């Protein structure tokens, strides 16, 4: 009996120990998982209040990539590119804006230099979990070309002589200036697959692609997924003004020989920054118009509204008869912008635009509302009649009539009107509490 009791007790203890060890093992697994999650992401990208976000987080990712690159080679000097035997280096004083991929991967481009010349760009990327980074040469495309051009312009105005490189030991720290690259926008998947620089082979090594271990930079807790802040219309329009491709299109339209034609002309722009002639409908006796591609890839359009022109007929006294087109956006123009907004899925509409070039001035409409503000259906007969009558019958300027029609008749929210002058001044036009037009300068 005693023996049985002792055996039972022993078995109970053994079973208890077994249970405890299983529980401990479970906890260990959980604990290890937690450690894995925490250690997998980069400390440098942990949050905007980290030591790396030295300027209020405005260059958070740019500074993060720079610091990872520099600290890796500080820890692994034997792997560092041989700066003395070639003039190739990365200029960490300038970087692109942050570009967002479809999977929320963040990309930043830095200029890749040979001496004082921008030879190419280096792409840096980090995935949405902030646990995988890459440094590489991207495949050459229009966006890369735009970046090279933008960096070249910036470096020409402030050349850095050899020996003034920054960041490495014995060199001054790098202050980063953001250079806006034309073409890419927040919701566009940048085409930045790894590739070979065009025209030369720099044989340049980068820090390893992968996790935070080799960088000795683990410890980020994953953090809150970063939501890009939409850029203001003023900033977008300022960038657009600085875009040489866009300016060339405006200049090609903004001249008497074009505005005096009897047909509208214009361009659409896709999200890669490529402009395409708006298709002119086949000329018939009665119909005339431009076709704007209704595509998720369309970013905006530029078109002309014509000067007064003769109809080709005269009255019985021989007076030529004149038509005066409405040199302001129409409900159909607003409709077109809204249709483009309907394709956006991430809530950032800031890159979309509709531009009108006319002798009355050049204007751009932007959509600053939310998905709930997207209203279409303004292109048919009813709206044409309403608008044509409104413009003809109401008193006041075209700006005032357009803004009042938007508010009182179309009842749309989030369409903003901007006048862009040839000297680059941008004015927001809106209605004040007295229903009169108010002009506000965009910050320079």
């Amino acid at each position: 009996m005693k023996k049985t009791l002792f055996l039972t007790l022993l078995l109970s203890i053994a079973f208890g120990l077994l249970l405890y060890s299983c529980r401990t093992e479970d906890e260990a697994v959980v604990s290890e998982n937690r450690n894995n999650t925490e250690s997998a992401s980069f400390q440098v990208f942990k949050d905007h209040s980290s030591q790396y976000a030295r300027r209020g987080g405005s260059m958070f990712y740019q500074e993060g990539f720079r610091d990872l690159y520099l600290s890796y080679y500080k820890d692994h000097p034997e792997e560092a590119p041989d700066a003395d035997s070639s003039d190739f280096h990365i200029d960490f004083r300038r970087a692109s804006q942050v570009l967002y991929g479809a999977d929320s991967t963040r990309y930043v481009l830095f200029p890749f230099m040979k001496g004082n010349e921008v030879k190419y760009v280096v792409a840096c990327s980090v995935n949405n979990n902030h646990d995988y980074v890459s440094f590489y040469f991207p495949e050459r495309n229009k966006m890369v070309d735009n970046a090279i051009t933008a960096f070249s312009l910036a470096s020409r105005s402030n050349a850095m002589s050899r020996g003034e490189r920054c960041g490495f030991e014995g060199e001054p720290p790098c202050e980063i200036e953001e250079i806006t690259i034309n073409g890419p926008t927040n919701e566009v998947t940048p085409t930045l697959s790894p590739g070979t620089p065009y025209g030369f082979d720099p044989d340049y090594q980068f820090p390893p692609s992968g996790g935070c271990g080799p960088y000795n930079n683990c410890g980020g807790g994953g953090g809150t997924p970063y939501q890009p802040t939409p850029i203001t219309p003023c900033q977008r329009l300022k960038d657009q003004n600085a875009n040489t491709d866009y300016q060339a299109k405006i200049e090609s339209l903004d001249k008497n020989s074009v505005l005096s034609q009897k047909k509208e002309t214009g361009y659409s722009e896709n999200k890669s920054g490529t402009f395409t002639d708006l298709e002119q409908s086949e000329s018939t006796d009665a119909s005339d118009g431009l076709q704007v591609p209704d595509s998720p890839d369309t970013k905006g359009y530029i078109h002309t509204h014509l000067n007064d022109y003769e109809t080709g007929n005269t009255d019985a006294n021989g007076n030529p008869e004149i038509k005066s087109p409405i040199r302001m956006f129409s409900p159909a123009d607003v409709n077109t912008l809204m249709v483009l907004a309907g394709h956006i899925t991430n809530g950032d509409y800031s890159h979309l635009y509709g531009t009108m070039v006319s002798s009355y001035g050049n204007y751009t409409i932007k959509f600053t509302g939310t998905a709930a503000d997207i209203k279409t259906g303004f292109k048919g007969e009813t709206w044409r009649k309403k608008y044509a009558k409104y413009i003809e019958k109401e008193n006041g300027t075209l700006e005032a009539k357009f803004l009042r029609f938007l508010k009182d008749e179309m009842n749309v929210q989030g369409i903003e009107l901007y006048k862009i002058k040839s000297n680059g001044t941008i004015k927001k036009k809106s209605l004040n509490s007295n229903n009169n037009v108010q002009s506000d300068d965009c910050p320079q």
Partner: protein
Amino acid sequence: MKNIILTFIILLSFSCKAQSTISLEQAYEYSKSDDGIPETVTSVKDINNRLNQFVGIWKGTYGGKSYEFHFEKKLNFGNYSVKWDQLIGRIIVKNSSGVIIYNNLSEPEEDISFWGKNFQHRSYVMHFVGNYDCLESGDVFIETLPSNPNQMTLYYSQDKDGLITSQSQCPNFSTFVSLLPKDKMTLTKQ
């Protein structure tokens, strides 16, 4: 004396602020400017009674179609900041087989598709909006003949500011023909 001057100034300031009336001919001059009709103007009148010559029913044929126009004169018309003396037009069009292809005789005047604007020299300028999916919208110039006020000419001038966003909006866009002729047609008063 001082009081008289003060009264004069006050009256003058009132007159500057006063709501004013312009003619249909002046309205044309303002329409050429992008600044439009001044906000002080609240009425455009047919001061010279030139609209009356068009009032009535007019018939004519063009391109194998027969046209019948009904012009009506309205005074102080519309719910706009400016009240207008203007014509409104109603149209019946039949094809060569006598089939009615357009008829807006019963269209409410507030939604009218054919309305008058202003006088440009001898012609009264109207506006017609038809199938706007195919961008049919344009000015219509009407003018009675100096030699015979019971006849007038009419033609349509297509607007050039349309945008199309999809092929399906107007599948036959390239071959679309507007309802009203681009060349002058002659109409006879009934």
